[in-house]
């Protein structure tokens, strides 16, 4: 079991490292684009910000990989995986907020005209969707706190195609990692949305920006809904002994993927916009 945790943590660290090296040595040298690099709306506004954000993300990714390797010498439990996931989320959140903080200063310093020749549209983010996502998360946390004491000390948390458990965890480890990853994901998406809010949108990045906001707003609702489904599935198996048929899991996952794809492509073919003119 320890080897599996190590494998997952190393895999996340390796993704951080590879993505980081690509950001430092390739993406930071490119013009702002929608296919390679740390692609947030603020970074599209200036070459200087794009290069700085990509270099910084690369450095942080590389440092995080090193920290994961060092930590793995001392910790070989689920907490190493939790660290790897949370630290990656934290890097994304921190870079997004940092980009929002420097954007006005850096664009002000750029060489160029002093008077506006064109008003730029800005990106709007739905506060009600963020609120809805957090309400569902709070409901999920309430369910966890009520149902936690009924769970056995060792939980079956993963099942094979026939519904037989094939992976077990201690209850406290499961609850702690489950809550921290849920909250980490919610905080990451919320902070990225915060960093995007009211950002100006250049014409060539308008469709991408709309698509990004559309997906993130959806993810903010899907994360707690999916986690609630997962928690209820595990609760039902471990407490009353009811196993959800695998076909339902497959349908849920396929439905989520379909909705995400639809939301991603919607801004490219619909005129309905999240960009304020």
């Amino acid at each position, binding site marked *: 079991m320890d080897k599996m945790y190590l494998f997952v943590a190393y895999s996340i660290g390796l993704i951080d490292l590879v993505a980081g090296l690509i950001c430092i040595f390739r993406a930071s040298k490119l013009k702002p684009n929608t296919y390679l690099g740390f692609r947030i709306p603020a970074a599209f506004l200036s070459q200087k910000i794009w290069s700085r954000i990509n270099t910084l993300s690369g450095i942080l990714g590389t440092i995080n990989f090193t920290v994961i390797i060092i930590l793995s010498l001392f910790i070989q439990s689920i907490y190493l995986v939790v660290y790897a996931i949370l630290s990656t989320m934290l890097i994304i959140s921190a870079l997004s907020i940092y980009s929002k903080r420097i954007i*006005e200063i850096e664009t*002000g310093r750029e060489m160029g005209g002093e008077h506006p020749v064109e008003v730029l549209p800005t990106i709007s983010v739905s506060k009600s969707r963020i609120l809805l996502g957090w309400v569902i998360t709070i409901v999920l946390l309430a369910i966890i706190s009520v149902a936690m004491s009924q769970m056995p000390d060792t939980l079956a948390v993963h099942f094979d195609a026939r519904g037989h458990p094939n992976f077990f965890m201690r209850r406290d480890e499961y609850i702690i990692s489950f809550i921290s990853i849920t909250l980490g994901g919610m905080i990451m998406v919320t902070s990225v949305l915060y960093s995007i809010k009211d950002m*100006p949108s250049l014409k060539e990045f308008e469709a991408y920006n709309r698509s990004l906001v559309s997906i993130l707003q959806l993810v903010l609702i899907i994360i707690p809904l999916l986690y609630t489904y997962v928690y209820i599935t595990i609760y039902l198996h471990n407490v009353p002994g009811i196993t959800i048929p695998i076909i339902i899991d497959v349908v849920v996952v396929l439905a989520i993927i379909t909705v995400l794809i639809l939301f991603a492509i919607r801004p490219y073919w619909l005129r309905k916009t999240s960009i304020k003119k």
Partner: protein
Amino acid sequence: MVFEVVKRLRYTLLSGFYLVAILLIVKRFGPIYGYRIRKLMIDLSGGVFSPSESTIYTLLHILEKKNMVESYWGLVEGGVPRKFYRLTKKGDTALVEVLKLVDSIFMALGNMRGDVYG
């Protein structure tokens, strides 16, 4: 020790006037962006006012929250996006009142000073 006190007093006095200076520059040159506000502030004051960039942006955001100025993102020649500020009606009214206050402060100080160090 004396210089330390003067330094602190200078900072306290000037930071109060930065807000007035920003409102004046936005009124006179707006729509205008933060970096140029700072540059004009330094140039027009002959270096007496030299706030840091972060001070300027913090004050602009405070003024915006209080609806004294409003902002929008614009594209300038050269394709650079910048955040521009302009005075609102509320800001305009407030500026008139603040300038009256500033004048009365200087008059009061002048009366108190008399011929001292004249």
